[in-house]
């Protein structure tokens, strides 16, 4: 084989391997985010709505309510909240950083965490004074928690009003540290979830503290009731 032929052959033999290596590398990097999203969507879709017997042995009664997310009637800056019952779907969180609208159940229990976010029944009802603490699984409803940035706007819809918050602080704390989730006099919304950990469940929690920027209590809905 002449030198000319050999010098031609080598690049041609190498080309498929170079191209394959480049393509596989690009695909591997590009697939990280879609894979996480797919996992989150699958987690949400496959949660079995009827897994929890509403009147079963656990004693948990889950109430699925239709939450008003678009309201064109009269509103007021002040009003009264409706305290939900344990296991009741009472709010929906919307935020541009989240890929899904997050249903919020009152009370914290494993069955409820499979259906949405849970609000600790010891915390303040959204719209009232105090610290409203909401948590959810990191592999489903709060998968996009790390996308939240300071000044991001979060809307919480309930059947008595729409409440708008602005992210004021990004937080990270140990699961044993309760300083962010205890009741407070200051009105705020605290959202948190587990920190993503490839090795399993993490002791670390991440979240955001949001300050209220707007309240719109539905006056006509209340009158109708």
């Amino acid at each position: 084989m002449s030198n000319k032929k050999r010098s031609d052959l080598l690049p041609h033999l190498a080309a498929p391997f170079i191209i394959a290596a480049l393509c596989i590398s690009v695909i591997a990097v590009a697939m990280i985010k879609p894979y996480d999203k797919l996992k989150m969507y699958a987690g949400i879709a496959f949660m079995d709505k009827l897994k929890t017997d509403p009147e079963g042995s656990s004693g948990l009664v889950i109430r699925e309510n239709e939450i008003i997310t678009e309201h064109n009637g009269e509103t007021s800056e002040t009003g009264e909240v409706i305290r939900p019952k344990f296991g009741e779907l009472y709010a929906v969180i919307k935020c541009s950083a989240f890929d899904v609208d997050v249903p919020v159940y009152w009370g914290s229990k494993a069955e409820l965490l499979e259906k949405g976010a849970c609000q600790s029944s010891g915390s303040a009802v959204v719209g009232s004074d105090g610290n409203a603490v909401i948590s959810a699984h990191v592999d489903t409803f709060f998968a996009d928690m790390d996308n939240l940035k300071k000044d991001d706007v979060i809307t919480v819809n309930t059947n008595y009003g729409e409440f708008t918050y602005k992210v004021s602080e990004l937080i990270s704390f140990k699961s044993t540290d309760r300083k962010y989730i205890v009741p407070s006099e200051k009105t705020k919304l605290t959202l948190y979830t587990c920190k993503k950990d490839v090795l399993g469940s993490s002791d670390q929690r991440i979240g955001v503290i949001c300050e209220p920027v707007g309240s719109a209590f539905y006056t006509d809905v209340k009158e109708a009731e």
Partner: protein
Amino acid sequence: MKNAFSYIASVIASVLLVFCILASVISVIGYTSVNEKKFKSIAASEHIDEKVCSELGRYFKERSSASGIPAEVYMNAIDSEYVSGIVDQKIDNGFHCLRGGNQSIDLSNAELDASIERFFNDYADSINYEKDEKFAKKVDAAKKNAYRVISEFSDVYKFGALEEHGVLSKVSKLYTKLDVIMTGSVAASVVLVIILLLLNLSSKSATLYWTGVSSLIAGIIGLAPTAYLLATDYFSSFSIKQPQIFTAYTSTLTMLTKTFMFASVGAAAAGIVLIIVYIIIKPKNKASAA
């Protein structure tokens, strides 16, 4: 090799061509196979209606101890034909939502209504219960609950859950653009082949080589994961509790994976043919390739 520039440019164009071929294959499969017709045919061929019926029977039987309503009250009025209609409507509605629309689902079953009413009336008569407004509300609640359960169990592709959480609207953005993506990726593939031709003007047959390599690699990239998924029966390891949902999802994923695998084999075979043609043609050209 006449110059390094033409070689590097050809490698880059070939890498882009690999992605364009993959995008073309995926979008063509998505366009032709992800639709209500295919999903309904899978539901029919896998006898998903029978699985739904069986699960409904099991559910109502389990609930009978708490509700006091025997499963037969529901199951005597529910058959595969009725369930099959609901499953098809759920699939139709899911794809309507994916296209940005919505359609109502008709769950009505006069036999079921009559069966529930008969049970409540007989029971009220047996204990001399006054059939007042409260009684009517209880009958109505039992009917509503029955339809809710039937609706939930028949939504075998979980379109309802996906829509409820806003996932369907996100997927819709991609799904409604599938035809654009398909046309775009096929057009981009053609453009890249032309670019390869221009880069290798001194040896036009080299275009066959670069195109062949791209096609072969696209085929291998598609073939390797799909062959793995099918050989290891990966989808069977899914932990989906309800059998009808498990069957619907795994059958659909298997169908899509097989289609993608066959398309990948086709791409790889086309690539090998192009490379062989290039090897045969090449000695006739005195100029060196690339």
